């Protein structure tokens, strides 16, 4: 009765193929983390910089220059104030090679569309200079800091483990109990009705659970149970009570009113 995922499979979404039909080509660019963080800070139209492509005798040199306003680093803490993100990033171009890469998008409305094929792969590298080295140093410092720190304290903590005459939880429990009071024997027939309705929901019950459900004293409840039910000692439903067969009307989930 395992309801496997197949039953719960989402509906198939038709994929919009316009992108590939038009042979749209895109670039897949690998960008360093810090740069991506800077880009996320872009404002307004989202301009982040300029891409410069120089075509020289068949070869193309591509490089990206970060906008000035995005060079301030805040992600790395106060120390980052002196360091700025590098601006020049030459691109290393790669061929698409052993993989056929396509790009697809999902909208929040679960619409899927194929945007296009990757025609060029590139890696965005920062121009290696003094600035970049400083940045890297900063990053390393941040990352090597241990997550847990051991500190020595001057005075011991004394908020806990003090002896208490009566624990808070205990006190509350006792109050609650007093409020409820002792369980009163209700009318026999009433109790039986309660039991029947309970057994409609589940077949097996623990005596404790029944006490909670019916709010009856245990001995009284047991008496009634002995009348209409049977106690399971063995089997999977270890020590539970269930209704006698003549009272049961289970039919694969359907419930009927069990009568006397």
């Amino acid at each position, binding site marked *: *009765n*395992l*309801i496997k*995922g197949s039953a*719960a*499979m*989402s*509906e*198939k*979404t*038709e*994929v919009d*193929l316009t992108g*590939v*039909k038009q042979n*749209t080509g*895109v*670039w897949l*660019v*690998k*960008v360093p*983390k810090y740069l*991506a963080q800077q*880009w996320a800070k*872009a404002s307004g139209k*989202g*301009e*982040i*910089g*300029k*891409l410069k*492509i*120089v075509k*020289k005798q068949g070869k193309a040199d591509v490089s990206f220059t970060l906008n000035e306003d995005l060079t301030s680093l805040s992600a790395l803490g106060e120390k980052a104030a002196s360091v700025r993100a590098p601006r020049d990033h030459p691109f290393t171009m790669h061929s698409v*090679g*052993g*993989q*056929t*890469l*396509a*790009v*697809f998008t*999902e*909208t929040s409305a679960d619409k899927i569309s*194929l*945007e296009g*094929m990757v025609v060029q792969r*590139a890696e965005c590298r920062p121009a290696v200079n003094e600035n970049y080295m400083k940045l890297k140093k900063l990053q390393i410092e941040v990352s090597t800091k241990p997550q847990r720190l051991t500190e020595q304290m001057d005075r011991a903590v004394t908020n806990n483990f003090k002896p208490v005459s009566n624990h808070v939880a205990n006190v509350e429990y006792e109050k609650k109990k007093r409020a409820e009071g002792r369980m009163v024997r209700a009318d026999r027939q009433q109790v039986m009705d309660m039991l029947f309705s*309970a057994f*409609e929901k*589940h*077949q*097996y*019950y623990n005596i404790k*659970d029944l006490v909670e459900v019916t709010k009856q004293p245990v001995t009284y409840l047991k008496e009634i149970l002995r009348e209409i039910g049977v106690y399971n000692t063995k089997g999977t*439903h270890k020590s*539970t009570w269930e209704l006698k067969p003549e009272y049961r009307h289970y039919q*694969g*989930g359907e*419930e009927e009113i069990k009568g006397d």
Partner: protein
Amino acid sequence: MASLGGSSSSSTEYIVRVPKNTSKKYSIMAFNSGDKVNCSSWTQARMERDMSNRRMYGVEETEEGAAGSEFGKKQREEARRKKFGIVTREFKVEDQPWILKVNGKAGKRFKGTKKGGITENASYYIFTQCPDGAFEAFPVNGWYNFVPQAKHRTLTAEEAEEEWGRRNKVVNHFSIMLQRRLREQERGPDDDDEEGEKGGKKKKKKGGRGGDLRIHDLEDDLELSSDESDSSGGEDGDSKPKKKEGDVKGKVKKKKKKKRGSDSEANEDSDDGDFEGLEVDYMSDESSSEEEVGEEKAKSNKEAVPKGIDEASESEEESEEEKQNEEEGKEEEEEEEGKKTPVQTKKKRDSSGESDTSEDSDIDGEAASALFMKKRTPPKRGGGRGSGGSSRTGSRPGTPSIDSASTSNTLRAAASKLEQGKRQVVGGSSESPAAKRLKMESSSTAVTTQSPAPSGKSTPQPPSGKSTPSSSDVQLTEEAVRRYLIRKPMTTKDLLKKFQTKRTGLSSEQTVNVLAQILKRLNPERKNVNDKMHFYLTE
């Protein structure tokens, strides 16, 4: 966009934007180049998440609704799991694989598994060029590697291992899947007709993986000694009833690939595959040969067989077998319908009626065994044959019963004699193996060629005189006893040993009685040697 002119270079600058409020999540769909996927050729595509890994709460355990459920079971189970520290991974829909179906039901299917860790150290961006010339960069959310899913049936791991073991034997690889399909059909809805049909059709082709037959692999002991005369390749199994020579239970082929027809899968004729076509004994429990103890003995007797005899009888073999098969067809069908009997040898003589010789050879041992290497049928068959001689399967023209009257008579006589329990052979006198062989050959030819009488080397009739039904070699006769006693003194025990029940065909009681009579007649002298009473005669 600024263009800078240069002598041999031109450079252009483009603005790069990262759109802020994009609701679209970008992902990469990666295919292996080897799969030769051309997205632009797709007419239609559907994609969905593969939810097969989802385990819903409480559904793992049997869900029964009101009946059988306990109050608070769920909570208790959860508490229990927590106690034991069982941590079930949360099912995240975004991490589930994709199922991509291209060009509808008949098209290709792909499964795209998410590649982990791509956003950990570096980010991927998709750069697209906008109509206004600027570039827009979108971060890649996930990378999915799509692999095509096989639509054709594949073997499971166990099956694959099995097939791997048989790779040298099997040439027809198409039948592998065929068998698998057949087996599935058997396991599945038991549609007898369908199965029978297909079985019938395919049985010829498929290699037998008969259910109740165990085939033992002879790869270990592939010396083609006579012991392995009977070997039907595993392939034969199921095709038996359907074979024309249906009754070829004793594919008395040693190593010869004569009746390859039974092999459903063509075996390679490679050098090292010389033994591949070996037909293997079926170790089925209900082999009829088990009933014949003698056969076991005979089998054990089959030691090194002089090759000459093989070759000589080789030519006869086929025809013999054919004939024998036909003859025995009936009996075999009666007895072994669907059973494979490890018939080691067939008694050639059966057909020829030379029951004596064949039996003799059986019992005699080596020389005889040579002849009967593979041509034996149990006497029962002989009996059945005798009785059913007339009603033999008429698939072959000119079966012995029909042709020569004389031989048929002798045949019947021989056959009936045969039926007398043990290896009783209609007594011929002891003849040399060579003679016997000749006799057999001639008799076989006699049968095949419908000649009225075997070339007069011998008759199948028991020689008159001693009427004791005994083997030609070892007869409990007065003459024989006399000879022994003249030679040297013997005790009764010794004498009895000389006339073994197996050889004489008499029961022990009979032997004793007969011997006693003979001794009375002979009245040998008595001598006590070593406190034992010895008899002796002086001539």
